[in-house]
């Protein structure tokens, strides 16, 4: 037990003193996940709304695929991106394997299905309510996509936060395509895995605490936004 207590106090010292090693890892984690989620939102939100509003061949298949991809294991996504980016792969010439860009690409693929599937649900519910009114106003389904994304903004922020939760918590994909290289591609989750294996519990615990706080903040924000939406914009 003394070991654990020591590890905890060391962990909090690392956080309190903004240890440069810890800060670097946290910074890279946030950068990778925020960029990945930002790009995933840019693609996933309109894609989800389009799946809800537009009728085109393959729409059902795409919807099912999207829902299935929501549960895809990160290691599988990591493996796919690895194969694409490896020297012999189709995108090998880019030389992106074991860079933060590769990690962003992997997390992007993980998050797009979540954001798109949730956005589809939100847009579908809103469309059921809005369709007659919008059609009467002269709004074609394609034009309704930005309308529904804006009117569903509170629910959609929750969807994006869920995507960020998945991106920042996963370890398998970034481990495979990033390689967990110190000062280059080491992020919170891969660092925790490594330091735990090496027995350096202080750093692992410190990062764990930060991840948990991050998760709390995200879920708190999602909750508050949901309440705001219900109160202000019925």
């Amino acid at each position, binding site marked *: 037990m003394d070991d654990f207590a020591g590890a905890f106090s060391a962990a909090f010292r690392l956080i309190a003193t903004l240890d440069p090693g810890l800060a670097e890892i946290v910074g890279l984690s946030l950068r990778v996940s925020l960029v990945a989620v930002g790009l995933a939102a840019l693609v996933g939100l309109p894609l989800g709304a389009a799946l809800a509003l537009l009728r085109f061949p393959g729409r059902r298949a795409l919807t099912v695929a999207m829902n299935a991809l929501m549960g895809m294991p990160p290691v599988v996504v990591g493996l796919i991106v690895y194969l694409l980016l490896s020297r012999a792969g189709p995108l090998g010439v880019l030389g992106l394997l074991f860079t933060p860009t590769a990690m962003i690409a992997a997390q992007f693929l993980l998050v797009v299905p979540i954001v798109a599937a949730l956005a589809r649900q939100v847009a579908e519910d809103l469309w059921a309510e809005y369709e007659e009114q919008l059609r*009467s106003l002269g709004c074609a389904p394609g034009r309704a996509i930005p309308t529904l994304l804006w009117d569903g903004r509170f629910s959609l922020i929750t969807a994006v936060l869920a995507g960020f939760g998945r991106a920042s918590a996963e370890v398998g994909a970034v481990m495979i395509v990033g390689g967990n290289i110190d000062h280059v591609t080491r992020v919170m989750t891969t660092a925790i895995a490594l330091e735990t294996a090496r027995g350096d519990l202080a750093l692992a615990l410190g990062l764990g605490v930060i991840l948990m706080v991050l998760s709390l903040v995200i879920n708190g924000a999602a909750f508050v936004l949901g309440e705001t939406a219900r109160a202000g914009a019925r």
Partner: protein
Amino acid sequence: MSASILPGRLEALGFEAGGRRLIDGLTLAFEAGPRTVILGPNGAGKSLTLRLAHGLLAPSAGRVVWRTAGAGRRQALVFQRPVMLRRSAAANVDYALALRRVTGAERVRRRDKVLERTGLAELARRPARVLSTGEQQRLALARAWAIEPEVLFLDEPTASLDPAATRAVEAIVNAIHEAGTKIVMTTHDLGQARRLADEIVFLHRGRLVEHAAAETFFDAPASAEARAFLEGDLLW
């Protein structure tokens, strides 16, 4: 302003849903000018007729013919329960104008005018969804008015409103009529029909029973169904 879309004609219109014929052989013309009130008991097909005429529903038989093409863009429909977008009252009007490609100073001018004339100028910045039911219906009228439609359809616009809000809505409908818009409105409220109608279209079970000037209809209804309806006898 290009050539009028009026008159509009419903020609032998039929509409079926779930194997039931809800509108049957309905032939009817909407002429420029008189306020047309579509009257009838619940289930007569009043709302369906409006939606078919407005193009929200496709008829299963017959057709809807307006004098010029692209008539849908020169009509508006105010629903019994208006759908307010999750943004301010003013932005709701702006949205309708943007869809008609009204931009810049003209958009501001029209929006401010209709909000003023519907008594909503003070509430322009409020989120539309926190307005009262009556205010929301006035906003729906403002939104429809802003696009300066040639024909305004209203589907039981006061059915869920109290008497004061009902009077406000009726006054706005009359103002829109006086500004030159053809009014086509459904109601099952006889008092409202007497107050607003220039002509009555009386429907029963999806069929046109009577189409007459309002005075004629109320003083001397030609059909047994209309007489029964006016006397408040149960009719469905």
